[in-house]
């Protein structure tokens, strides 16, 4: 009886294949690693929960994927991870605001900037990639666009792109020092206007990009922002052509957001013990390193990375370290306590983007309206604030 590992992660075929061949091979019991897009993933899970019996042994997904089904997940606090030290912040996230360990952190990633080395010549004078700011980024993109005749900044604004995380975790914190509370502040308006400025030098094809590695490889884009897993291919294929560097900083700091993937066990899991064993297996340092190689998601446990890492990891590691260790670093957390409203929360940011940047609507007006929507969502979820907003009692306010 193999454990069915039902996951939304490592979906690109090559990664899936590596998960099976390299990461999960070592587990004692057989594992059937199956990926699905969010729709089928959730539908299947909900169906099993409703039916009261199922075949899924273990769930793999992002923080947001679990928020809807939190009530139907087994408490994992008793899982014996065998002395491995798991990142506490993420473990807390994994409780989904309850007292139980709803999911166990599995791997983490974040977003970074990547640039084609050809672009470096257009870097504005005095700019250090490691301390780059949004203004510098804009100027740089402008330079490139003007010198080469086509905009070469790229941003994953396609339907499967992860753009909402950029606004939530990067743009807003960098300019306002907040994600929710200052949603419609003057600083926020500045942020959007800056972004609009940047957008002028952004490859218009960006609205079709789900991930940036391809446009980078094809040369359509020279400078890009994306999830590390979605940049990796470019670095692995042409290690010498690209550089990775931290996300830019704004007036309020260098906002960035981690991405956490977790594993969870649904209450309908046919063999919970075995599933728990698999959870423990996933957290083993060797497994975590194998996972890093396969998916470019970094470990959530304390491990020492060996030297034989793929080019992408070698490039990202220092960049991430620089970003998180920067003096102006301003980490933002994934939304917490929103339950099944996570999707709608994200939509507020995407909608703002589409209306302001793509639709060219008035910034102030749009923010007013979206703020109302945001407030409604937060109020409904009664979610208290999370970093970088200051903790609140009761629902996080939208000023």
């Amino acid at each position, binding site marked *: 009886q193999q454990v069915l590992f039902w996951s939304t992660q490592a979906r690109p075929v090559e990664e899936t294949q590596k998960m099976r061949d390299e990461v999960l091979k070592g587990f004692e019991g057989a594992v059937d690693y199956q990926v699905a897009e*969010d*729709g089928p993933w*959730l539908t299947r899970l909900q169906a099993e929960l409703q039916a009261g019996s199922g075949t899924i042994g273990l769930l793999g997904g992002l923080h947001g994927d679990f928020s*809807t089904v939190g009530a139907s997940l087994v408490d994992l606090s008793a899982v014996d991870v065998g002395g491995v030290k798991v990142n506490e912040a993420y473990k807390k996230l994994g409780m989904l605001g309850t007292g139980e360990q709803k999911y166990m952190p599995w791997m983490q990633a974040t977003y970074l900037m990547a640039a084609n080395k050809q672009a470096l010549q257009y870097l504005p004078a005095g700019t250090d990639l490691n301390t780059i700011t949004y203004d510098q980024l804009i100027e740089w993109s402008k330079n490139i666009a003007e010198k080469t*005749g*086509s905009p070469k900044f790229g941003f994953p*604004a*396609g*339907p499967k792109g992860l753009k909402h995380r950029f606004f939530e975790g990067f743009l807003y914190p960098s300019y306002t020092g907040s994600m929710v509370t200052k949603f419609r502040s003057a600083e926020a308006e500045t942020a959007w206007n800056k972004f609009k400025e940047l957008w002028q030098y952004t*490859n*218009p*094809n*960006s*609205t*079709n990009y789900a991930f940036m590695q391809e446009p980078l490889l*094809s040369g*359509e884009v020279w400078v890009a922002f994306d999830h590390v897993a979605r940049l990796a291919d470019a670095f692995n294929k042409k290690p010498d052509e690209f550089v990775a560097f931290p996300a830019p900083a704004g007036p309020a700091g260098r906002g960035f957001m981690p991405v956490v993937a977790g594993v969870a066990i649904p209450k309908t899991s046919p063999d919970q013990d075995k599933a728990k064993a698999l959870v423990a297996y996933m957290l083993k340092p060797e497994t975590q390193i194998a996972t890093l190689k396969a998916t470019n998601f970094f470990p959530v446990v304390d491990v020492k990375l060996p030297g034989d890492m793929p080019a992408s990891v070698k490039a990202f590691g220092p960049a991430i370290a620089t970003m998180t260790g920067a003096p102006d670093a301003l980490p933002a957390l994934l939304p917490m306590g929103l339950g*099944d*409203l*996570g*999707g*709608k929360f*994200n*939509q507020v940011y995407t*909608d703002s983007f*589409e*209306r302001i940047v*793509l639709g060219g609507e008035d910034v102030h007006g749009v923010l007013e*309206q979206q703020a109302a929507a945001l407030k409604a969502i937060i109020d409904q979820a009664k979610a208290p604030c999370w970093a970088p907003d200051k903790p609140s009692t009761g629902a996080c306010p939208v000023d």
Partner: protein
Amino acid sequence: MHGKALPYLLLMPATLFLCIFFLYPFALVAFEAVTRDGAFTLDNFRTMAGSWKFPVTVRNTLLLAAIVVPIQLTMALLMASVVSRLETGRSAALYVFAIPLGISDLAAGLIWLAIFDQSGFLNTLLSSLGVIDRPVMFLGYQSKLTIFIAVALAEIWRATAIMMVILVAGMGLIPKEYYEAAEVFGASPWQRFLRITLPLLRPSLQTAIILRVILAFEVFAVVAALGGTNLPVLMGETYNWQFTLQDRNVAAASALLILAISIGFTLFFLRVLRVPKEARI
């Protein structure tokens, strides 16, 4: 004869089947559309219609259908006529025309992406012809028109075969004698097409158009592949409500809207293309 019972007997399997596998789940979903937290409400519809994207979505969907379906109909008729007129190579031509049938919308989207993409074949072709000197962005958010055209082309390319095959089969059943009679009575090929083929093909036309229109309201994969979020359509919004925003009630409402639009058009075509009972063959 089993008399009056026979038709019902023959419909029984299909009806039972649809009741179990369609009507029952449908009822559950429809129920969700008109309730929220167990109470009846029209809020879901209000929420759906209140979304800022909603008018654009409806407009895009209808516009796409309004442009794609007539072109497809024309092309399908053209293909069917060509196929039925060819003497040699008929079956080869039919096969070729039918090929897109086997191609899923996902794959079709991919194929056309390979053409319209900035690094795609179209740009290569244009630049080798010297029309352009640098790749043109056809699918960028600024060029909504080219996105629309690309989506329309892909849809036309992909789904014309469905209509074509229905029409080919229908044309095969029209007795030759009627064409001959029309020919003798002075009808040009075009007039024969208008006055014999089209009216006698009405049942097949009806089927082809209705099915096609219904499917046109459900376009999604191709649009997503080519247009990203730049060309929001109803089906995409439904998906969005269901899976991204995880609001099953609004998603159900949105699906009901698609259903309602489809039903409206279906009834329209059923009426317009009705064949009076006495005028059947």
